């Protein structure tokens, strides 16, 4: 049942994503200033928005785990953090490609990208430490705490990179002002939806693996206890 739901979601996600890319590549005109490369925003920005969504879900489920000790919440947390980190990475890579095309450098320490990079590093800490904890309850508890600490850092990161006396070559945020042209808005919204569906399918796959892993662990313990 759950597997079927995952497959259905994945197929739906693929259809929406491919359909939207088709629109983006064949229907939309080139952007006035940037030419063809602007199309990367239909991947780049949805990745960032969805990363935020999944990190937020991970925060909520981390708190719920601490409150209830229900391991399902821990599984959701780790699945969302993994997918969130992947999306952040996608965002960084696409941003870097865009930057190379527009600014001539792969990395320019622009504010948004710098903030994203710091988020990525924060959650890498979570993903690196988690496998080092052997006991499942310890692992779930400590990872939940790390996830809460990481999330609390995000507003501070955003504040820090905007400090007036940070003396580096950081340019101002791109696209801080200005709005999307009306014909771009539809594909943009569908892009966010497509990315959300794909990510959700991945989260479901990871959830399935996590619960299988827990079952294996407990069967092992049961065996050793005999």
């Amino acid at each position: 049942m759950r597997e079927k739901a995952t497959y259905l979601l994945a197929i739906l996600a693929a259809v929406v994503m491919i359909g939207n890319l088709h629109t983006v590549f064949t229907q939309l005109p080139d952007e006035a200033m940037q030419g063809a490369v602007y199309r990367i925003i239909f991947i780049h920005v949805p990745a960032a928005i969805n990363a935020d969504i999944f990190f937020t879900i991970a925060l909520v489920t981390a708190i719920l785990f601490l409150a209830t000790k229900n391991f399902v919440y821990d599984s959701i947390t780790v699945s969302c953090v993994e997918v969130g980190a992947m999306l952040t990475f996608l965002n960084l890579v696409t941003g870097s490609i865009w930057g190379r095309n527009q600014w001539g450098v792969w990395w320019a320490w622009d504010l948004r990208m710098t903030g994203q990079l710091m988020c990525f590093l924060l959650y890498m800490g979570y993903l690196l430490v988690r496998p080092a904890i052997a006991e499942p309850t310890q692992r779930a508890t400590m990872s939940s705490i790390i996830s809460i600490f990481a999330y609390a850092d995000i507003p501070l990161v955003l504040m820090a990179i905007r400090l007036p006396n940070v003396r580096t070559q950081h340019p101002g945020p791109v696209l801080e002002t200005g709005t999307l042209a009306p014909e771009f808005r539809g594909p943009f919204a569908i892009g966010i939806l497509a990315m959300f569906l794909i990510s959700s399918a991945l989260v479901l796959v990871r959830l399935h693996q996590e619960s299988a892993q827990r079952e294996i662990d407990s069967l092992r313990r049961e065996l050793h206890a005999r």
Partner: protein
Amino acid sequence: MLAVEADRVWKYFGDYPALRGADLAVEPGSCLALLGRNGAGKTTFLRILANLSRPTKGDVKIFGDASRGAEARRKVGYLGHGIGVYDDLSAFENLLLFGELAGVQSPAKAAMEALERVGLARVKDGMAREFSRGMRQRLAVARAFLHKPEILLLDEPFTSLDDKAIAVLQSLLQDALRGGATIVMSTHQIREAMELATHVALLERGQIVHTGPRAQEMLNDPGWLYRTYGAQT
């Protein structure tokens, strides 16, 4: 009022239940030996009673107070597998610290008294790291008894002790019992435990399968309890 009361305590490690609804009621002034094979959940259970671990379900009361509260913990003395003293503090400094943490009225006086009781007053300024194994164990015993706890929780207390430390511990435990204290000790060394125990409880696969007064049969036949009440053989 019961000294220790555990009500359907569950503890999961991942999906594996190490405790499956363990119930325990210990009358004040009694000495309960918590018996069971390795892996039955004795240490897990004792750690929950001592506030070192959180039950997944169920709850534990110490003289009617929640075991997590400071009020309950003030009444508890704990002696676990490790000796729980600092190598880089002197014997006296160690006891002074734990006296302060336990909220003893005059920690320095209590520390000296405790050192005398275990025969370490002469070396009170010696660093714990310089002590022999037996002396360290006696220091650990002094630490557990320092604040004159009403309830003593002991995890395998006789396992790693040398003869002198066992004698010191036995006499301290007997004094404590005469003074009205309650003792819960996990052990699989039935002979040593039976010298003190007034009650026994048998833990098997995370459940208390039997509690009752110490039976006469157990003195000469350590396997009797398991054969009579144990589900497994």
